[in-house]
């Protein structure tokens, strides 16, 4: 294979090393613009019910956020209402004289208007530059309103993708009260984000809830996946913390472990049989209900035996090219998918995970490497071109050339790609569980469809007509 369309070819560990040394990170961030601190903090807080994120900024920050979320993510696509997002509408005189008085008034108004349980002030760049003391205003405001009032210094220059949600989780921890009792067999699920600003799909959570319920495990709170302030207050009464999205959730798990001594079960995403077993047993063992969990696994496994057998027959000996960026927000689910296909006998190659996403999720990537997941990785030059990298025509052409270099290939990604091999359209599964045993059934169905439809003609011309 020539290398004019290969920018990196190695394994995940090798890529991580190049990211850590800065070798694979472009100096100017033209090819990938990750969410900033304000946005990721906002995403976490939006998962708390009856919480008002109050933006201390000019109107643009709020409008951009609420409009983006409203149009792209919740109301118009999924029918989930967006909670009110008040804004201080910072103007020129606030920049000169300070916006603290206005912020105090806005908190009082938001409390009077919406009667929330919690108000969280999120400061943006302007407020950060002039040095408004948002934490002091939160303390002052709390004396005059019924809601709890807290603040995060979330100005864009003050941190990155990771720091936003880490600070939000730290703030959530401040709301947790000393336990009145320990509730046996009860857990918190950390890292879930289902609600107006979901980055996961609720169907995955339902599958987890179903398996936990079968094993007799109760959930106190899903933080921050639609949990209430009361559930957060009582979070320390749970016996165990469990990761769901361990990329976002692990910080909170680690912090609660360090500060409150709460045990924390951290495993990979439950894609496929092995990972699902590990996930469920990782919860059950610390709760001393391993026997019950094993019985659930036995029963569920029996139900999916045809799919397990099919996946082994279908994938054994194949090269599976997994391209996470076409269907997932980050690299973690793609890597979980790679592990799943490997379990069924395929050789996974993960294509085009942007080095920035490796940088953003460094602790999670290191954890995955510790668990032994270290798939082959290929990055193409198209990834680094200007603009959004996920659907560039350059990367599509490169994919087609890469596929030609292997025998017996199967592609896992979006149906928008046209490689000369069976295409497992992961986009079709977006409203169905991918986790757990039902996920195995669904993914088996997608693989079956891809292999059956290999000879079906597809039209690039129509793709161009529709998407340009």
């Amino acid at each position, binding site marked *: 294979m020539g290398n004019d369309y290969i920018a990196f070819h190695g394994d995940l560990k090798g890529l991580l090393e190049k990211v850590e040394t800065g070798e694979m990170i472009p100096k100017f961030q033209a090819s990938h613009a990750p969410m900033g601190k304000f946005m990721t903090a906002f995403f976490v807080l939006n998962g708390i019910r009856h919480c008002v994120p109050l933006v201390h900024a000019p109107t643009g920050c709020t409008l951009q956020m609420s409009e983006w979320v409203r149009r792209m993510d919740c109301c118009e696509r999924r029918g989930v209402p967006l909670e009110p997002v008040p804004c201080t509408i910072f103007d020129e005189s606030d920049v000169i004289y300070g916006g603290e008085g206005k912020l105090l008034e806005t908190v009082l108004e938001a409390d009077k208007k919406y009667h929330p349980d919690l108000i969280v002030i999120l400061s943006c760049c302007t407020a950060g530059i002039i040095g408004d003391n948002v934490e002091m205003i939160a303390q002052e405001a709390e004396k005059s309103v019924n809601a709890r009032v807290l603040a995060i210094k979330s100005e864009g220059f003050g941190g990155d993708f990771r720091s936003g949600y880490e600070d939000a989780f730290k703030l959530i921890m401040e709301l947790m009260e000393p336990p009145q009792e320990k509730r046996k067999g009860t857990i918190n699920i950390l890292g879930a984000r289902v609600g107006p600003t979901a980055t996961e799909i609720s*169907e995955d959570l339902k599958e987890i809830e179903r398996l936990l319920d079968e094993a007799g495990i109760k959930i106190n709170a899903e933080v921050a996946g639609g949990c209430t302030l009361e559930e957060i207050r009582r979070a320390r009464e749970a016996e165990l913390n469990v990761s769901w999205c361990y990329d976002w959730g692990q910080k909170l798990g680690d912090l609660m472990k360090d500060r409150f001594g709460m045990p924390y079960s951290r495993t990979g995403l439950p894609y496929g049989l092995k990972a699902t077993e590990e996930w469920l047993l990782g919860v059950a063992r610390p709760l001393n209900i391993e026997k019950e969990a094993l019985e659930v696994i036995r029963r569920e496994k029996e139900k999916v035996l045809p799919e397990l057998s099919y996946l082994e027959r279908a994938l054994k000996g194949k090269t599976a090219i997994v391209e996470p960026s076409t269907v997932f927000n980050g690299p973690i689910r793609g890597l979980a998918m790679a592990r799943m296909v490997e379990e069924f006998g395929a050789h996974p190659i993960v294509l085009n995970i942007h080095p920035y996403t490796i940088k953003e999720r460094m602790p999670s990537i290191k954890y995955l490497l510790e668990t032994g997941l270290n798939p082959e990785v290929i990055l193409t030059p198209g990834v680094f071109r200007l603009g959004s990298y996920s659907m560039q025509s350059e990367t599509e052409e490169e994919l087609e050339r890469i596929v030609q270099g292997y025998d017996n290939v199967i592609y896992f990604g979006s149906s928008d790609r046209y490689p000369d091999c069976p295409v497992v359209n992961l986009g079709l599964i977006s409203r169905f569980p991918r986790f757990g045993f039902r996920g195995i*059934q*669904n993914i088996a169905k*997608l693989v079956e469809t891809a292999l059956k439809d290999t000879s*079906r*003609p*597809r*039209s690039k*011309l129509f793709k161009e*007509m529709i998407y340009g």
Partner: protein
Amino acid sequence: MGEEKTLIGNLNQKLQWVCLLLTYRCTSECSHCFTSSSTHKDDPMKLSEAQEYLEEAKRVGARRVWLFGGEPFFYFDLLLSIVESAKQLGLEVTTTSNAFWATSEESAVRRLCPLKEKGLEYISFSADPFH
């Protein structure tokens, strides 16, 4: 939680028909129009372009083509030619119009007969307070 909500159903759905928007020009400017068609637009699809799409539709297994707009009857000769081309490829042809041209029985016949001769099988009319 029902099985139908957690498991993917039948995925064996093939492309059945292709809809071509021949123009965004229309006699009306309905607020609900999904193509935002209007009286000011004048941008018909080229016949050669339409023929390319019809051939591609046939190649990927479509059985029917739906000629839509805007108002496809604005470009009647183009409509006739596309119907003829589609029919020659063995595609069933349907069109939709708001029937602005059907001001009398005579004018309606003058439009519909040639279309039928070229092979149009179905026609649907938009008949509502907007049209």
